[in-house]
């Protein structure tokens, strides 16, 4: 039995999370070369962002095209710490190399707190969450939603990139921050340490999925879906939808921040190109393809799309971005529930062969009244808003 609202039963959620852990933590390290494993590590970072988007967009209905900002804040926070720590290695000057090259050779005041590992780790989670909370309250209290919210979030990421590029001396400009040698004292050139990093990222992804599962099953998770489907109705029950949405948005932001922080040591660079408008949209593509409202859809979609991108863009460099755009449009138009809903449909066909044979899946409603049609696509598709 499922818990309703497209929430997998406790057993299925556990089994799925276990399987994910098994594949990422046991099978992949055994099967993949170091190079491929590092690549998978990078995709795992994207998948962590995707889990957050699944919460904000899939369950909460907020199409956030600005996750790059939060990913970037987490990434840059970590990168700043690594640069500062590297600069102190072997009795160094304590000034990051690029600052000596482009700047006046002094470390700006706002960099200083990032010398502290503890501050950095806190900042990676707290800064994105706080920013999202402030933005969320400002945006949702004004009842801005739907496409307006999407555009606003995208404008935010564009502005963030402009800010970064303009501050060459303190942010590395378009080059970003790169050339990290160590991670909290461990050399990044040691393969054993790189493997540990992979495990760290994979472990955090599994934990994020477990968190998302717990959230889906919680009362808050139900309230979030109710807010997505009938924001006005929820208001009359005494809840402030702006608060509900802000919590989900902040959670998604924190996950993106953590992902950005992991991305930095795994990939070795963070630059505006990694967090701008295009990467922010690519985050969405993966989630849409996998199925935004499900528990595993966002993760599998993010990894799948990133994997396809790497393979296909090697073969056809210019073709990929068109393909990606087409993919997003196709999924949203033809399969709003993503691949996850495809699985559900197939399963439904298998269990009720007569109905499946007599009517094409898209026209399942042909002979059946509306409620039955709605039942076949649980919470994948936000219901029409209830207007009092």
């Amino acid at each position, binding site marked *: 039995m499922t818990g*309703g*609202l497209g929430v997998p039963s406790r057993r299925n959620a556990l089994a799925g999370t276990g399987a994910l852990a098994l594949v990422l933590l046991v099978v992949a390290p055994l099967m993949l070369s170091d190079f491929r494993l590092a690549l998978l590590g990078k995709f795992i970072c994207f998948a962590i962002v995707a889990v957050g988007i699944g919460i904000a967009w899939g369950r909460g209905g907020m199409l956030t095209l600005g996750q790059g900002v939060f990913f970037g804040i987490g990434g840059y926070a970590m990168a700043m710490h690594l640069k500062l720590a590297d600069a102190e290695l072997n009795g160094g000057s304590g000034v990051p190399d690029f600052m000596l090259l482009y700047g006046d050779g002094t470390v700006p005041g706002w960099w200083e707190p990032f010398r502290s590992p503890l501050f950095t780790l806190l900042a990676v989670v707290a800064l994105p969450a706080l920013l999202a909370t402030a933005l969320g309250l400002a945006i949702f209290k004004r009842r801005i939603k739907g496409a307006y919210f999407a555009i606003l979030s995208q404008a935010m990421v564009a502005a963030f990139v402009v800010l970064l590029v303009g501050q060459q001396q303190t942010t590395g400009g378009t080059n970003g921050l790169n050339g990290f040698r160590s991670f909290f004292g461990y050399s990044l050139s040691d393969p054993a340490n790189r493997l540990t990093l992979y495990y760290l990222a994979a472990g955090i992804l599994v934990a994020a999925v477990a968190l998302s599962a*717990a959230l889906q*099953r*919680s*009362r*808050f998770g*139900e*309230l979030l*879906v*109710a807010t997505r*489907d*009938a924001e*006005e*109705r*929820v*208001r*009359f*029950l*005494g*809840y*402030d*939808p702006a608060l509900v949405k802000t919590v989900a948005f902040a959670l998604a932001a924190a996950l993106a921040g953590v992902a950005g922080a992991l991305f930095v040591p795994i990939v070795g660079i963070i630059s505006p190109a990694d967090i701008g408008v295009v990467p922010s949209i690519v985050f969405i593509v993966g989630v849409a393809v996998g199925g935004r409202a499900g528990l595993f859809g966002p993760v599998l979609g993010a990894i799948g799309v990133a994997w396809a991108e790497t393979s296909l863009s090697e073969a056809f460099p210019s073709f990929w971005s068109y393909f990606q755009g087409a993919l997003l449009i196709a999924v949203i138009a033809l399969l709003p529930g993503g691949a996850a809903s495809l699985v559900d449909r197939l399963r439904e066909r298998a269990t009720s062969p007569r109905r499946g044979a007599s009517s094409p899946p898209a026209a399942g409603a042909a002979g059946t009244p509306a*409620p039955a049609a*709605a*039942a076949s696509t*649980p*919470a994948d598709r936000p*219901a029409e808003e*209830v207007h*009092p």
Partner: protein
Amino acid sequence: MSPQTVDVLGAPQDVATGLAAPVSLVVSGLRVQFGGFVAVSDASFDAHPGEVRFLIGPNGAGKTTCIDAITGLVRGTGSAKLGDDELLGRPVHRTARLGVGRTFQTASVFEEMSVLQNLDIAAGMNRRSAALLRPRRTVEPRIEAAAEQIGLAGSLEQRAGTLSHGQKQWLEIGMLLVQDARVLLLDEPVAGMSHDERTATGTLLQRIAEHRAVVVVEHDMDFMRRFATRVTVLHQGSVISEGSVAHVQADPRVQEVYLGSAATHGADPAEHEGATS
């Protein structure tokens, strides 16, 4: 008076019963304007615990608009007081938190959710945030009691979207019960119901009204005659008559309004039911 405590959100609660303390709704000089159009010009009525107050009037009289203004959905001027608290000017969710619950002309339950989930969400506003983070493990007694009252105790796991029309209306009333509403504003609660369902609803409302103020907007005159304690008649945004059922029925102005609308609708006021929504 029984001892009172104040819960985290500031809503007074009756310790003995666990119910919020009964309180009256007093609306006076309510006015609502949409652009240049005055939908409600001067509406005054009240509802007290223990009575089922009916608010009637022809289509477009402004009944729904009155409820919208009281609950904060549209802006109104004048006054609507719940006990000592002024309701006008508050955001919708704060008004709800004070204990004002409403239903809608078109049933609006969360269709994708089970009956239990619907009731549970409605019961949630008085929960602490920490409780929100946990899944629901048991059915709370007050939810069970409400489900019992609305006749859905056996259908807790059923998806609300698959309920019959009448059951959806009852579920909405049940949601107001677990929400601990002290005033219930019901917009055409029996529209589309069978005769037996109407009777059941009326009895339910009378029972609910023992501890709460209930305002019912209805077109069904037969239903009104059977269950109204007091009636307020609204016409073109203002009150034209008020009193017992017998009193308003004998009022020539009411007859005129209803005959007038009967002429246009081709129906007797008693048969006006079902002609709406």
